[in-house]
């Protein structure tokens, strides 16, 4: 481990991490159902408290314009990269295709030997809802969520696969999917809108970090990122949207924070997960502890994969 990084146990809450010691899960609409209800508002985490917020506060909660941003540790990104490179060196010794570490559909990370994604029924719904989210934060709520998402995906690289998967569904399943998307979209569009352009919002931002000369590649996407490049203080916050089947998106959130740190040289100040089905946002401040945990997540997965590969020979 590089000397610039604090020795942290990623399984223990970091004292300075709001997310771990006072993690917040928020949604924009006050809902009588409280924490567990769709569109409900909750503050979860170690304390397990519950709070209520009003409509339209999600963007403000993400960015907190008045809050003080932590200064950037200039050696952190290099230290994290060196730590990762040391940890994946065993993979480089093995042959075979590059190992791609990316967010999995269940909230944990996944490592595969190819970059292809499979479009299961659950992934199909999530893809449609992510598109609804993207349209909403770009140009406002779509008119008819299901149809508009399909129309939008027609110009996307994966659009043909989605259209084909939807077309193959039996009529009743298709109607069911349409209703699920329409229902979930109402929560998304009630909570989100286009952020001010001066916040430099962007969607569908791809992040990658090749390690061991490209033998291992870390990948993720930010469904929404805001804030310009750092000039000495943390300046970026990023949101990952996921389907409702995900129990804990923490590892994926951490991976997003890690990748943004590696590529920009400055850690983001905040990362969040947005549950598209339940319309719930989980916000986490980025700390050294969170980034250390992200490295541990990656190395544990790569190590397990390497052992499987080695055992299979």
């Amino acid at each position, binding site marked *: 481990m590089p000397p610039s990084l604090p020795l942290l146990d990623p399984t223990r809450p970091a004292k300075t991490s709001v997310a771990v010691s006072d993690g917040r899960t928020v949604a924009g609409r006050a809902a009588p159902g409280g924490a567990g209800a769709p569109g409900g508002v909750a503050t979860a985490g170690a304390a397990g408290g519950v709070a209520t917020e009003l409509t339209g506060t999600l963007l403000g909660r993400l960015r907190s314009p008045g809050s003080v941003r932590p200064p*950037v540790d*200039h*050696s952190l*990104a*290099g230290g994290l990269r060196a730590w990762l490179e040391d940890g994946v060196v065993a993979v480089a010794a093995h042959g075979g295709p590059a190992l791609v570490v990316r967010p999995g559909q269940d909230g944990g990370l996944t490592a595969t030997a190819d970059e292809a994604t499979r479009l299961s029924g659950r992934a199909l719904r999530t893809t449609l809802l992510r*598109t609804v989210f*993207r*349209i909403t*934060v*770009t*140009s406002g709520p*779509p*008119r008819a969520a299901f149809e*508009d*998402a399909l*129309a*939008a*995906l*027609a*110009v*996307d*690289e994966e*659009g043909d696969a989605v259209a084909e998967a939807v077309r193959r569904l039996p009529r009743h399943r298709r109607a069911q999917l349409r209703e699920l998307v329409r229902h979930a979209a109402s929560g998304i569009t009630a909570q989100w809108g*286009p952020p001010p*352009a*001066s916040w*430099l*919002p*962007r*969607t*569908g*931002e*791809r*992040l*990658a*970090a*090749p390690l061991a000369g*490209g033998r291992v*590649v870390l990948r993720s996407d930010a469904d929404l990122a805001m804030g*310009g*490049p*750092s*000039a*000495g203080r943390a300046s970026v916050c990023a949101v990952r949207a996921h389907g409702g089947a995900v129990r804990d998106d923490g590892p994926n959130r951490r991976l997003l924070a890690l990748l943004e740190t*590696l*590529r*920009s*040289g*400055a850690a983001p100040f905040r990362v969040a997960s947005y549950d598209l089905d339940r319309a719930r946002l989980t916000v986490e401040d980025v700390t050294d502890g969170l980034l250390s945990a992200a490295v541990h997540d990656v190395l544990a997965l790569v190590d397990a994969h390497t052992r499987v590969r080695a055992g299979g020979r």
Partner: protein
Amino acid sequence: MTVPTAPLPGVRPGPTVSPVVLPRAQALTDVLVAGGPVAGAAAVASARRLLEHGLAEAATHAVDPVPCLRIRAFDLVRPGAGLPDGPRTPFRWTARTARRRVGLAAIRSCLVDPGLAPADAVARVVADPGGPAGPGPRGPGSCADWLASLSPPARAVVQASATAWATAVWTALEWGRVPAPLVGAPDRWWDRRDGVRVALQGRADVRVPGPGGAHLVVLDGYPSSASRRALAFGALVDALRSEGTDVPARVVGWWPDCGKAWASSIDGTALRTCAEDVVGVVRRALRLPVRTRPAASS
């Protein structure tokens, strides 16, 4: 942003982009505007001779009739793509293929009005694709006509994709320090019609004109050794078509997905290496054996 220190055959690294300097835009701009020695007419003539000799030799050995080969930097990275014997995917406009064209149009608007945020500039381009700030001339198959034909949700996704791209590029440089940047200038071509007919298509996202100028090329994903070598391709096209009077001093490749930048100085070795790579692509397309390059001599 990091620049690998290990030398690549035929590639002389340019000025280093410091991995710790913040803001990154300062470091990248420093590299882009640093100037430097320019490959002289003799170096360009040498690369041209090497290329023409290689093409003539390939034509001599070709068995099948040789079609016109269009070669882009991409073909040097993934030999075979887009060539007669390679995987052929017909081009179509998508959010991904249009984002560069729309994003560059938006950046041109931002340069005219620096108070304009990239998201607003992209929204303007998408709202009036045939207008003066649009992504290019209208016409069948054009990006402008395609954009105009889209439904509102499809247009929103194109807008989203172009906004992400344009924001990354707009915030990557300190534009006030880049002298007279040419943003998204038309691709430049060099073609040869004797023997093997080839058309080389050179592209740069930002050109810093003049002696000691530079190209900025924005690329997807992350760099490989092949993609680094291919950086010189646009400079080779400039050198060939201008007979050596308009050659950038360096090409800076920038991969926003991973934050890496690679600056390659364009000297005689870089031009000759790139010319060899072009000949290699042509020989592969004609199913001729490709010579392996000797160890690094630069």
